């Protein structure tokens, strides 16, 4: 039998016929299944639902948290860069307003201003004044750019038009990345001049590289054509084409998800820095960002799995236990019902038997006397001719009457023991009484019955019940044996207030699988042949009522042995259910 078969509760073993099932109040397998399904449903559906909701909510919130954080960093960094540039532009504006054009034409004055700018703001490399013809009329700085004409340059045209110009990053003569800021100042006589400064971008390059970014983050600046304006950690070198696409223009900070060149999903935050050709970009790897989410998700799923297993285990064991309890109670009820039915039936049979016996006894007595008289007349009175044959016939009548008398007396005894009564019995006599019912059958089928009795004292028990127990078992033994079989009845005192009776036959035996069921009500292998399946269950009940115990040993082909142990004094056991 498989492990499941052994674990399988008893109520799962379906009764064979609808009739037998109908004796129970409930369909137990169905009750079990529906209770398990219902409780499991009620317990697990909300749990799974809540976990699923929590899963989604947590995932979304972690995602949006990262989006928000990225967007915030982009905005803050943009503000810093923007401030860096506009601060320097404002300083140029201040210089233009603070100095007359003549003063700015003075190289010493311009050198002093550049020195002050370096000290006060930092990042300034050179400073030049360009007059309305496009010629650099004054210049201080490391290069010889005085008198250089910019009139045909693009930026010059732009500053003429917009009054301010901020260049993209370019490598200067010393191969250091620079940007240029130029401001135009209109003079009252419709003339103008331009103040132009080169700035080292070291300051805001440091600013970007010092940003602490999670998820292998990378922060850099590109221009509108995608050329890197600052070095990046993983998206190309300065003044090379960046490996990310140029994001669509937006006046505010945006965060979008995009697949990188290696197929990795990237979280890209960007901002078009206003008034400059720059786009600030921060790139993070989504996979690394969501690493904490992976852990959370794993914990969530593990929690769900453990919960489901625990809930199912609790439900299964509780429901099995409860249904089994109900089943056992119902089984007891059914057994009690049938015991009562059986007892009633036996009582009716008893009444009928005693009635018949009483009625037959009287005519039997008359036959006895009449036949006796005939015999008397033949043998004692000389008036009637004595005839051996007649005497023989009369003797036959008389012996038949004696036999009938024995039968009616047995019936009366049987009826008398329908009532419950504890009395002192001699086991020997009782066993012979029981065998009396079966002696004809034993004779006819040449079954050898041997009785081996040790010295057993008279003991207190219910004669009728014990008789019924032995009769049931011996009847079964007779049914199991072939003609010429052997029945051994042994009885011995156990010395501990118990007497043990064993009844062994050499019949067909009981298959191993059926042994544990034989005392269950309705378990019968003779259903087709009119068996009720109640005999042994009632026997079992009766032995219990007598405060005793019954056990069985059997081997197919070898035979069966029932062993009954009974207390010598039923009242001492105190568990009589009579």
């Amino acid at each position: 039998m498989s492990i499941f078969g052994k674990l399988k509760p008893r109520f799962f073993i379906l009764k064979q016929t609808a009739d037998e099932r109908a004796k129970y109040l409930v369909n137990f397998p169905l009750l079990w299944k529906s209770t398990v399904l219902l409780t499991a449903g009620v317990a697990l559906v909300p749990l799974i639902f809540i976990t699923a909701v929590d899963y989604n909510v947590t995932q979304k919130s972690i995602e949006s948290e990262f989006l928000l954080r990225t967007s915030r960093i982009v905005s803050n960094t943009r503000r810093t860069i923007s401030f860096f540039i506009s601060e320097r532009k404002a300083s140029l504006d201040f210089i233009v307003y603070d100095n007359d054009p003549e003063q700015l034409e003075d190289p010493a004055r311009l050198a002093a201003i550049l020195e002050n700018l370096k000290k006060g703001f930092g990042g300034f490399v050179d400073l030049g004044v360009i007059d309305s013809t496009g010629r650099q009329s004054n210049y201080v700085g490391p290069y010889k750019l005085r008198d250089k004409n910019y009139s045909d340059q693009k930026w010059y045209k732009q500053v003429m038009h917009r009054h301010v110009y901020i260049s993209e990053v370019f490598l200067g003569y010393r191969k250091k990345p620079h940007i240029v800021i130029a401001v135009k100042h209109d003079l009252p006589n419709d003339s103008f001049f331009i103040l132009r400064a080169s700035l080292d971008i070291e300051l805001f390059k440091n600013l970007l590289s010092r940003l602490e970014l999670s998820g292998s983050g990378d922060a850099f600046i590109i221009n509108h054509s995608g050329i890197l304006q600052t070095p990046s950690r993983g998206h190309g070198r300065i003044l090379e084409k960046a490996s990310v696409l140029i994001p669509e223009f937006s006046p505010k900070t945006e965060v979008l998800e995009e697949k990188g060149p290696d197929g990795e999903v990237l979280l890209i935050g960007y901002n078009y820095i206003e008034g400059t050709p720059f786009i600030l970009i921060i790139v993070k790897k989504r996979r690394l960002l969501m690493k904490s989410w992976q852990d959370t998700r794993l914990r969530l799923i593990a929690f769900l799995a453990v919960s489901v297993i625990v809930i199912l285990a609790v439900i299964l064991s509780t429901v099995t236990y409860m249904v089994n309890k109900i089943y056992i109670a119902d089984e007891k009820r059914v057994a009690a019902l049938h015991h009562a039915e059986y007892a009633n039936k036996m009582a009716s049979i008893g009444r009928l038997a005693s009635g018949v016996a009483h009625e037959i006894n009287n005519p039997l007595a008359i036959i006895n006397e009449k036949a006796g008289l005939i015999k008397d007349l033949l043998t004692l009175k000389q008036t009637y001719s004595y005839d051996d044959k007649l005497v023989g016939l009369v003797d036959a009548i008389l012996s038949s009457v004696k036999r009938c008398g024995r039968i009616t007396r047995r019936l009366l005894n049987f009826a008398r023991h329908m009532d419950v009564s504890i009395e002192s019995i001699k086991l020997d006599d009782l066993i012979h009484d029981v065998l009396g019912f079966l002696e004809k059958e034993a004779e006819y089928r040449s079954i050898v019955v041997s009785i081996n009795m040790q010295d057993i004292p008279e003991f207190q028990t219910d004669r009728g019940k014990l008789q019924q127990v032995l009769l049931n078992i011996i009847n079964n033994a007779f049914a199991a044996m072939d003609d010429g079989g052997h029945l051994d009845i042994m009885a011995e005192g156990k010395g501990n207030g118990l007497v043990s009776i064993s009844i062994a036959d050499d019949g067909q035996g009981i298959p191993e699988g059926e042994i544990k069921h034989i005392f269950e009500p309705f378990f019968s292998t003779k259903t087709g042949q009119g068996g009720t399946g109640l005999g042994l269950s009632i026997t079992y009940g009766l032995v219990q009522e007598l405060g005793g115990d019954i056990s069985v040993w059997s081997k197919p082909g070898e035979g069966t042995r029932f062993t009954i142990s009974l207390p010598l004094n039923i009242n001492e056991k105190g568990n009589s259910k009579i």
Partner: protein
Amino acid sequence: MRILLVDDEEELVSTLAERLAIRGINADWVTSGDAALKMVESQHYDLAVLDIKIPIISGVSLKKKIQAKRPGMKFIFMTGHGSEDDFMAGSKETGPEFYLVKPVDIKTLIEKINMALNRRRDTL
């Protein structure tokens, strides 16, 4: 020795009386309690064989009534109802050896009659 047989089955008592007569025992028979009382009043009997279940009056109360009139008489009970109650009733009044279950063997009956009568002599 005179004996009175009381049983509602006439066929039974009459035959029984005849068989006893053949064996030299003088036995009268009646089939009711009333008739039994009348017989006891008019004649002397040493012993009565009573069926426990006779109509109107039970064997046990009939015995009491007879005993009131004839204190020296002995009794044997006879029954076709070999049940516990009958047995108890019979054995309380007479002792279990004077209780017979039908059908009765004539030899056993005579044995019991002799035993009962001997007991009477012993007690006298």
